[in-house]
């Protein structure tokens, strides 16, 4: 019962921060709400027996990535964007579609008996860092290495993209 209360509490925070992120006008606020949301999800990860992913989530996502976001927002001064849009039907249609998506998904999950976890027969949690590290460097060593190459490419790409070509000649 306590579990359920914790879940609903955290879920409420997650949904609230997500909504706030979408609704708030200021991009900096948006980013901060997202940080909150990410932290809550990290807590969920911990509850689900995945401490390693939870730590990565906080360190990489809520930490590094969001700092980058805030940095860019402030550097560009893009807290607010003005100007009217020509897409009149965009917002209502998007809302309707989003609602349909959520509704459909909920309907599907609640309908499917397989979605209901078997009570009391949960396997032991297995997300400790040692196991994951072993798995990453044995079975999934190829995707792991490819990911490292991807990060390298992204790094080079960022350098090329962010370089100010006008200051090149100087």
């Amino acid at each position: 019962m306590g579990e359920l209360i914790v879940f609903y509490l955290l879920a409420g925070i997650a949904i609230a921060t997500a909504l706030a992120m979408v609704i708030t006008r200021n991009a900096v606020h948006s980013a901060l709400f997202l940080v909150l949301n990410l932290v809550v999800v990290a807590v969920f990860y911990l509850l689900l027996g995945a401490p390693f992913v939870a730590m990565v989530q906080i360190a990489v996502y809520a930490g590094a990535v969001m700092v980058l976001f805030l940095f860019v927002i402030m550097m560009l001064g893009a807290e607010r964007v003005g100007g009217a849009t020509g897409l009149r039907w965009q917002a209502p249609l998007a809302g309707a579609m989003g609602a349909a998506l959520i509704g459909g998904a909920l309907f599907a999950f609640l309908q499917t008996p397989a979605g209901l976890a078997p009570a009391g027969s949960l396997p032991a949690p297995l997300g400790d860092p040692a196991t994951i590290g072993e798995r990453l460097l044995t079975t999934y060593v190829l995707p792991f290495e490819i990911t490292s190459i991807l990060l390298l490419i992204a790094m080079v790409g960022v350098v090329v993209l962010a370089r100010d070509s006008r200051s090149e000649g100087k």
Partner: protein
Amino acid sequence: MVTLTHYLALSAILFGIGAVGFLVRRNALIVFMCVELMLNAAGLAFVAASRYRGLLEGQLTVFFVLTVAAAEVAVGLALMVAIFRTKKTTNVDELSSLRG
């Protein structure tokens, strides 16, 4: 008793909010953040499934998604900076020069 369905439902709700935000907001950076939210919602579903199925692969997938997302954010923000430099805006509606 918290079941997998709870988590999946939460994941769907977060994903839906992210999707609507992606479509509604005009600030490119917020649009970007909405994408992150959607990725995150998917990650939650993966980890929950991993827990209730007793398989490690769900967590590993989230790990890979995280790295790819990090790379994506880096490149995406670099693009934003480059675009801002020429267009002086981050409003996605003003970036429509590919109109057919």
